[in-house]
């Protein structure tokens, strides 16, 4: 299918469905028409065509009801590609549509108090009991768990083998008895993430994603997609965070100094070259030649977002903050809040979704082919590891 044909499809779809009518109806119809993710298979929100045509669809459908990227981020960016890659036909049919329309929100139950960067040491147990699995453990820093219907969950199913081999991946029913979500207040004041306690949670075997013991491989797919999802969103020249900063720079000539001017110009250049390498990356993906640039996008995004948000506070010489009251946020309203919030929230960018240090390890070993660190945990059964 080419650009003209996909445009025809979109036009035909728009002729049948009124974008100004019911939002949910419209989104459901769009999914059913294969215009959700055009590169997904037919019947699963896609048309099985080249990924680059998605841009055409987005352009043609500009101004129609949109997804809520903030709340749906984990579902769209991580759960969906993992379900597509490892799910059964039944799982794909059951989960992808409400995930895409936003009727069901997803969260990610990966990190644990003792297993962050070293995710593969996680201790949450899943034990088979007939056709069900019984899950016990504690997860932490779980974004959006308080409004999620489903979660992607990694557990330990075999403690007697080395850590990477004894894990199994599940879809977790967040409404199941034994799932307890407690708010975890952040440095911004709000509670966007949570502690999640799993006590005797029973999950039917048909919520397992991938083979028993294959959880690490499934999780890799999630993590790789997460990095592209966090750092790889397209922006226009001078847009995104650098746009917020330059807008306020233009509005406040009285606050400008020579030092800040030099720094802002440097950051503008860095934002632009980062944007351009994102454009190249997406072109490579579309041309079917995924390059290693993907892992770098999140790293540069985190650094830039932090530098720019710190700059914004300094430029405004504003000692105030917008709102410290404790609250359960619905999503990360990054641009809707003030500079102080942005500065504090951006600090999470180099921690969430893999820390910048871990990303540098990945780049140096998998992209640049440098030797790995000496491994003290290799070939040691998980149960014998020091924790």
């Amino acid at each position, binding site marked *: 299918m080419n650009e003209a044909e996909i445009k025809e499809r979109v036009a035909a779809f728009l002729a049948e469905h009124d974008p100004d009518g019911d939002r949910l109806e419209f989104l459901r119809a769009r999914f059913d028409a294969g215009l959700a993710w055009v590169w997904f298979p037919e019947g699963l929100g896609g048309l099985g065509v080249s990924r680059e045509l998605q841009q055409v669809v987005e352009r043609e459908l500009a101004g129609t009801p949109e997804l809520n990227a903030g709340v749906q981020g984990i579902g769209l960016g991580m759960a969906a590609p993992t379900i597509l890659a490892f799910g059964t036909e039944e799982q794909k049919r059951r989960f992808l549509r409400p995930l895409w329309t936003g009727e069901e929100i997803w969260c990610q139950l990966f990190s644990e108090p003792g297993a962050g960067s070293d995710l593969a040491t996680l201790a949450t147990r899943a034990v088979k009991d007939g056709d069900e699995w019984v899950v016990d453990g504690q997860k932490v820093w779980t974004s959006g768990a308080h409004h999620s219907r489903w979660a992607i969950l990694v557990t330990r199913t075999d403690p007697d083998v080395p850590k990477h081999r004894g894990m199994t991946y599940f879809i977790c029913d967040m409404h199941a008895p034994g799932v307890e979500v407690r708010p975890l207040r952040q440095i911004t004041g709000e509670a966007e993430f949570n502690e999640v306690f799993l006590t005797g949670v029973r999950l039917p075997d048909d919520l397992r994603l991938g083979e028993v013991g294959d959880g690490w491989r499934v999780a890799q797919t999630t993590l790789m997609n997460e990095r592209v999802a966090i750092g790889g969103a397209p922006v226009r020249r001078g847009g995104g965070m650098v746009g917020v900063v330059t807008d306020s720079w233009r509005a406040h000539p009285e606050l400008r100094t020579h030092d800040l001017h030099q720094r802002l110009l440097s950051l503008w*250049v860095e934002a632009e070259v*980062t944007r351009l390498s994102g*454009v190249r990356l997406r072109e*490579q993906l579309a041309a079917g030649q995924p390059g290693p640039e993907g892992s770098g996008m999140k790293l540069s995004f985190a650094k830039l977002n932090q530098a720019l948000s710190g700059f914004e506070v300094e430029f405004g010489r504003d000692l105030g903050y917008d709102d410290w009251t404790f609250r359960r946020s619905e999503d990360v309203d990054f641009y809707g809040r003030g500079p102080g919030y942005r500065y504090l929230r951006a600090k999470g960018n180099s921690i969430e979704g893999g820390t910048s240090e871990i990303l*540098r390890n990945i780049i140096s070993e998998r992209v*640049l082919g440098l030797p790995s660190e000496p491994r003290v945990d290799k070939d040691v059964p998980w149960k014998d590891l020091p924790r």
Partner: protein
Amino acid sequence: MTLLYSEVEEELRAAVRGLLADRCPPAAVLKRIESEPYDLDLWKTLAGEIGVAGLLIPEQYGGAGASASEAAVVLEELGRGVAPVPFFTSSVLATRALLATGDTLLEELAEGRKTAALAVPFAASPYRTGAAVRLEDGRLTGTVAGVAGADVADVLLVPVGGRLHAVEGGALVQAVPSLDQTRPVATVTFDGAEARDVGECDLAEVLRFGAGLLASEQLGVAEWCLDTTLAHVRERHQFARPIGSFQAIKHRLADLWLDVVRARAAARSAATDGSAVSVAVAQSWNAGVAVHAAEEALQLHGGIGMTWEHPVHLYLKRAKAAEIALGTPGDHRAALASLVDVPGPE
């Protein structure tokens, strides 16, 4: 428009890279820099057989009529090899100046029969083009310092007052010790030299075009530095481990790789769109990345990196000289202030 390389560009790259690997590896460049820096035999092959001299010249004048992005790929490879040939000075800068005039000299340049140089300091910029040469009765007088490529040029192209003048013989060209040994600079003195008016010249535009393509050469320099350092840290052992297994080193190289990835995108953008903003962005970024890559390469090679025998110094010298050429990163950032409406304090 795309920021990826086309198949034609990759073929051109392979041809240039193959020739350089055979005829002018860094060790060979090193050997000749003190006596005769330019490799004119190599230049003959590049110009004649691969046809790079006429790359930017339209077919009607005997050139290849290629686009800037093809010339950019050649520059990436020449940067990678710190190749001592006058492609950038003659076939990019001087040629671009001549293109607007349609002068017959273009045919001689296209065939590689003659080589030209633009008689402006290599450190001039699109934002500062002041001329040091006067024109009286068709004769030129004045001194221009820091001209790159002048010592091997058959023709000097001298911009004065919005017009371009060609001088063949009749100028005094004195090579001076140059920081970048692979791209010598000379002091050019005109003492009533006879000159031929060849047509109009928008010098700022020519220098901007050159600056945009220089970003590709800088990318090539940075790539060589990164690749060579990666190979070294995989092999070199200290403390019973390859030094490339130490995280302090891995993280530095991961960061450098990310800088180079972005330099590639910036170079492609400057070569394909060539707008004032793209050029200023590419020069602000790539000039620094090339210098940083060479400095990291030197440091991570340890004592070896500090020796004359190891070619890394050639790259450091090329990178540092190119950082100043055609506008410093600061000059280009200052230009961006008005180009993208980020004005300074009032």
